[in-house]
């Protein structure tokens, strides 16, 4: 039985309040949480920390989510890590781009509750 404590989550989100909300929530749930505020940082942190799952925003300054995802997938380790795209974009183009780039799931922030998010992550990581 896996516990949240054993798992590390990387949150890549440029909006501070949103990042904070996620960080707080997942921390409360017991996960190890690391964060980055753009794609560039995200890559660095990901490679350093080797999270078990990444929550990735798309619209970010410097390097956006999809670019980071692409780069990530080119990495030896990075190509396998599950990535949930968490964005407020909902157009099909971005969806397909994300999925083609290797995203595990595509969620629209304003349409989902944090609890839902937590549940999905838990289920992906095999936590009950």
């Amino acid at each position, binding site marked *: 039985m896996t516990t949240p404590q054993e798992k590390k989550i990387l949150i890549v989100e440029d909006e501070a*309040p949103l990042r904070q*909300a996620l960080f707080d*929530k997942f921390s409360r749930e017991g996960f190890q949480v690391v964060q980055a505020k753009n794609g560039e940082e995200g890559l660095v942190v990901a490679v350093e920390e080797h999270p078990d799952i990444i929550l990735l925003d798309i*619209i970010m300054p410097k390097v956006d989510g999809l670019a980071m995802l692409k780069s990530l997938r080119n990495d030896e380790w990075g190509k396998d890590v599950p990535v949930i795209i968490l964005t*407020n974009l909902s157009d099909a183009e971005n969806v*397909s781009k994300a999925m083609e780039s290797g995203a595990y799931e595509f969620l629209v922030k*304003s349409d989902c509750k944090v609890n839902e998010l937590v549940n999905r992550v838990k289920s992906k990581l095999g936590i009950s």
Partner: protein
Amino acid sequence: MTTKFIILFLTISLIPLAIAIYVSYDSSKMVLEEETARYFYGIIDNKVNQIESYFSDRKEEAATLVKIPTVVESLERFNGIFQKMGAKSSEYKTLDKEIRPFLTYFQKASNYVDLMLVSPNGDLLFSVNNREKKAGTDIFAEDVNLKALFNKSKILLETEMSLFEYYPENQKLYAYIVTPVLKEEILIGFGIFRIDHEGIFDIIQDYTGLGESGETILALKNGNNKAIFITPIRHDPEAAFKREIILNSDEQTDVQKALQGQRGWGIATDYRGKEVLTVWRYLPVFQWGMVVKMDLVEVLEMVEGFKTTLSVISLILLIMIVLIALLMVHSVSGPVKKLTRVAADISRGNLSARAEINSGDEIEKLAQSFNQMTDSLLKTQENLKEKSKDLANNLENLSREKQKVVQAKERLDTVLYSIGDGVFVVDVDQKITIFNQEAEIISGFSANEVINKKYSRNLKFTTREGEKEKMNNRFIQEAVEEGEIKKISSKVFLISKSGKKIPISGSAAPLKDNFGKFIGCVIVFRDVTKEREIDRAKTEFVSLASHQLRTPLSAVNWYTEMLLNEDIGKINKKQKEYLNFLTQANNRMVELVNSLLNVSRIELGTFTIEPEPTNFTEVADSVIREQNQQIEGKEIRLTKDYGLNLPIVNADLKFLRVIFQNLLSNAVKYTPEKGSVTLSIKEEKNDILIKIQDTGYGIPQNQQSKIFTKLFRADNAREKDTDGNGLGLYIVKSIIEQAGGKIWFESKENKGTTFYVTIPLSGMKKKKGAEVLAG
């Protein structure tokens, strides 16, 4: 035809005539010759008789002469003296002197060459030509024949004549007549007369009946191989004893034959080289050959005369024949010519001409039929005149129509070339027949390059499917196959001549003729690069805008959620209440943003419909469960009325959900507490009919028409519930209609509203788009 007839006639009549003439001429010639020959026979025989007569007369003469007493006496005396004294005695001489003149007289008178008195023994007693023959000479010495003659006469005591002998030195023919002299029936001596043949010259030279050219030839064999003419002849007076012919030659075969003892006649060539009719015979008595001949020309003179007569007769006949022929021909050709003239007249256009022929024969019948034919011709002509008038009218009309057509075409051409969109038309073989200016500009091809060629040769349409591109000319084919106007999909590009990919928009419409037969397709298209860019800009803007709008909303959402969750600490009732209001308000915003996004997608046409087999009742139930809270909160009695055995219909799940969500939430929202809502799903004709009936506030009559418009909310709805955004029904209607269904409602204020939705059993129409609905 007259000529033909005459020629025929003449040929038929002249040939026998000619034959007849020839035959008659020929036979008359023959007859004439025969007749002439016969005649000549007469002449020749006559002449021979004359000759024989003449010599017979000479014999007679001689015989008579010696009967003259003087002569007897003379003979006696001579004989006496000769016997006693001989011829040389003087008594003889005296006697001679005495009697000579007397006997000479006789000799001369009878034209004897010589008159001789001879003793019964044959002694010459006296000869007038005593120079040659002196008395006492042996006259028989040289002349054997004479002796023979003498003996004959002596034996027979008859007057005998010898044959003539030819004496070339004298060029004379002599013969002897020996006649016994009798005194008292006692032979006392003989008279021997020598004669020549010139007495017959007259007979020979008698040309009676011998015309101008006829002559008689008398000839004598002279030697073995020659014959000599013994008389002068007409055409050669010197011929006597001069002209010879060689026997067994081709000369004077008539003379030769005569000398051979033959008798005959024929046509031969004489010594002059002229053709003669000749008759010959032999005079056995004299051993002469005689020929009577006449120039054939002269013989046939008669025939010539006949010939002339014949010619005249035949000429007359000829003229008669020609006249008869002409007459006959005229009797036939006359009417025929008349008929011909009438025919010519008719052919010139005078249809009133008729042939009047009363010949009582087939030609008359012909003329009658001819006239009948002309009558019917006249009628036909009149009919034709009528028809041609009609035709002329039609032609006029047609030409006017043509004019109109030409004008219409010109207008069309002008219009085509002025149209601001590209237009091209393909025929049944997919060859381009019309290509307007705008099409040239967009495609980069000139009309000349593409006209009469298959459009696919030059105009290449492609679609982008994801990253892939493929040829897509299907819209033209689909238009043709389905017989309907087909819009060019928004993903279609046209590759220009220069290779540039130009996004186009437009449609293909099949062209049919009056009988519904497909005759081509007209395609109208626009370069929508700008529009696409604008659309893309809009989409991007909307996307971005909604993103920006959503971001703060997400923050509010999560924090309020976490607060309500009591993640940060317990909250009291009032806190909860406030937080709930917040949540509600936030949800409204989220809802609005989603709706706006959808509206923009609908407006831009970028949304997708992806039908899959769907169980409508299941979806309905799911939506009902979702809204359970609201339903129970207002104590609404929800009744489900589902048809039995509803078919599975192709529908886009998300759409269907949106439809149910929208209508159900409206029904619940705008029905007061404890009201009722009925949801029925039934199969109706070719559709699934969804009916949502509520007992709510209804829609005011004067606002019903605006219900489906964007952002519209009826006044009473606003009063009752501030929560709606007025986009729901617009979105639902747009989707339903895009999917091939219908939506309408019935409503009475304060009574209730019923919304009807039909989705065809054939399913929602698939629509390709870039987006799915948000929310």
